[in-house]
């Protein structure tokens, strides 16, 4: 848990303009009330079951396990959720909060478009107007998701400021919010931003780990030896890890995007290749230069190329509770194809990073050990990127 001012150790906090401070304090008060309200939890659970399709399955991957020749590999199948990723869990929780607070207008930022689609989905479900800020560069390369958002009734605003990618979309969403404080709720897509967002996003996503813990106990009678999840902002990883943090024998591995490699500057590994700083409302690890100017992240996965990371991960890294590693574009691409062929599952490029890390670790672990990895998104959205990388004309 963060302290009462939202700090995870030295990380987290509320580094926002004064205009937003009263709103953020108000959000925290309302969230605390919602946490104590059984009706709020009941509505959240009901929507997750009947609208999202939870619980998601826990799947033992027999052919991948055999191919790797080591630990048993299990996947939490969050790619089977409505809208195809874990993002919807958080959006359901936040829109219920927005409605509870009487907000009538929803804004969001999106990079690859998965969070934008999930936000547009819950806005359509509850009949609220939705404005999604998306970097113009991302609008151009993620056309299918832009069209999905529009079908769902959202307005997609291309952001041309700065580098026109995810961090600029987040800047623009913050600018909108500050100018529309009275009626607008900002649905942040990952476990980052000013307190209480990192905590509340993590809590909404913790359904992943709570289910996985119960499922693995019921299927195998024991806890896993290693949890693995990909990290962009880090919400799917925190969702999986958090319910296991008090299980000392469960090790955890977070997998960042190494892009072309950590030795250059074409990666998105904020923890392994960045340093502590302050951006978008929180203190955390950032990709930045010696003057504190933010540098652009790169990954084959548009969902991972954010130059920051959720503050709780920064803290879990410093405390040593979670180990962090990074996987290159090429390794993720290999893992993507491996899962397609061996298990009949087309994963998103984000969890392909987790799968690449699993392939390395499984080989080093005994056959009676268990790895549980989060398959946090499906790969339909990525087939164009993959085809291009493989030199295939579609």
């Amino acid at each position, binding site marked *: 848990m963060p302290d009462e001012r939202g700090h995870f150790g030295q990380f987290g906090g*509320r*580094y926002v*303009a*004064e205009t937003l401070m009263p709103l953020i304090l108000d959000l925290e008060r309302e969230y605390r009330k919602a946490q104590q309200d059984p009706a709020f939890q009941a509505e959240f659970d009901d929507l997750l079951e009947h609208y999202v399709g939870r619980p998601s399955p826990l799947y033992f991957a027999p052919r991948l396990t055999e191919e790797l020749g080591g630990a048993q590999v299990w996947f939490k199948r969050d790619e089977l959720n409505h809208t195809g990723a874990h993002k919807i869990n958080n959006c359901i929780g936040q829109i219920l909060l927005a409605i509870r607070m009487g907000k009538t207008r929803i804004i969001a930022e999106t990079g690859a478009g998965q969070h934008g689609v999930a936000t547009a989905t819950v806005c359509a479900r509850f009949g609220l107007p939705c404005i999604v800020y998306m970097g113009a560069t991302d609008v151009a390369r993620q056309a299918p998701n832009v069209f999905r958002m529009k079908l769902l009734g959202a307005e997609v605003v291309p952001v041309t400021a700065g580098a026109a990618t995810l961090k600029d979309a987040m800047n623009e969403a913050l*600018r909108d919010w500050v*100018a529309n404080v009275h009626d607008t709720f900002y649905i942040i897509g990952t476990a980052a931003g000013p307190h209480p967002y990192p905590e509340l996003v993590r809590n909404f996503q913790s359904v992943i780990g709570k289910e996985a813990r119960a499922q693995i106990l019921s299927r195998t009678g024991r806890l896993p030896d290693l949890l693995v999840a990909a990290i962009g902002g880090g919400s799917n990883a925190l969702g999986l890890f958090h319910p296991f943090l008090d299980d000392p024998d469960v090790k955890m591995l977070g997998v960042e995007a190494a892009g072309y490699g950590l030795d250059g500057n074409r990666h998105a590994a904020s923890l392994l290749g960045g340093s502590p*700083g302050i951006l*978008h409302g929180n203190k955390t690890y950032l990709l930045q230069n010696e003057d504190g*100017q933010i540098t652009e992240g790169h990954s084959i996965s548009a969902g991972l190329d954010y130059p920051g990371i959720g503050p709780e991960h920064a803290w879990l890294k410093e405390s040593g509770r979670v180990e962090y590693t990074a996987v290159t574009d090429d390794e993720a691409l290999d893992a993507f194809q491996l899962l397609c062929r061996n298990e009949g599952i087309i994963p998103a490029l984000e969890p392909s990073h987790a799968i690449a890390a699993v392939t390395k670790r499984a080989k080093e672990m005994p056959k009676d050990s268990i790895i549980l990895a989060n398959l946090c998104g499906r790969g339909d959205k990525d087939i164009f990127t993959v085809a291009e990388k493989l030199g295939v004309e579609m």
Partner: protein
Amino acid sequence: MSSRLSSAFSKPHPALICFITAGDGDTAANVDALVAGGADVIELGMPFTDPMADGPAIQEANLRSLGAGTKTADVLQIASDFRVRHPDVPLVLMGYCNSMVRRGPEWFASAASKAGVDGVICVDIPPEEDAELGPYLRDAGIAPIRLATPTTDAARLPAVLEGSGGFLYYVSVAGITGKQQAAIESIEANVARIKQSTDLPVAVGFGVRTPEQAGAIARVADGVVVGSALVELVGEYGNAVPAKLRELTSALAQAVRTAR
């Protein structure tokens, strides 16, 4: 508190505070034009890649400056050169906390103090996170200038005032720089409300573009901040801008000085 800042607010007329982004064009020539035009306080923007509180004009100025290769060391050099040329004109740095705390808050406070900086406005450090930078500025004799906004209610105002110095910057609209201006009645009421709680001078900014607007605000506040309108001139006129800056600043100064 800085004697230069207190002098600027002790003049017989309200203070005109002129903002410009450091490293965007010939900053020395530009700030000199602002002083020559009648600016009472110079607010120098530290360029940042992600200026979340700024509208398009200042965003673009930030990118122009960074694109030209401006470093933190250059901003501090611009400040110390200014201090040599203008020993009596108060200079305030405005920016975002990451570029201020990157080398440690002690380093920044000390470097800014050596450069002759009188105050620092950090947009994204609210009172709740004051420990990040505020104590170091105060120890170095630099005024931490806080922002109050239309959303700063009576319950929050004491926290905003606690530990702030120089002047209080009242943000006239809930929004970003350079956009719409609030109704003068609302500005007057809010400034009066704030002044009941503090002896600090209250300056008003965000959305102030014309001499008419500046004059109207000068009737109800201790200072007026103009930024985007000046920065837009820099974007438009490039090297020919000092004359334009001086012209607009003179008109603003005249309006501010004759407001009451």
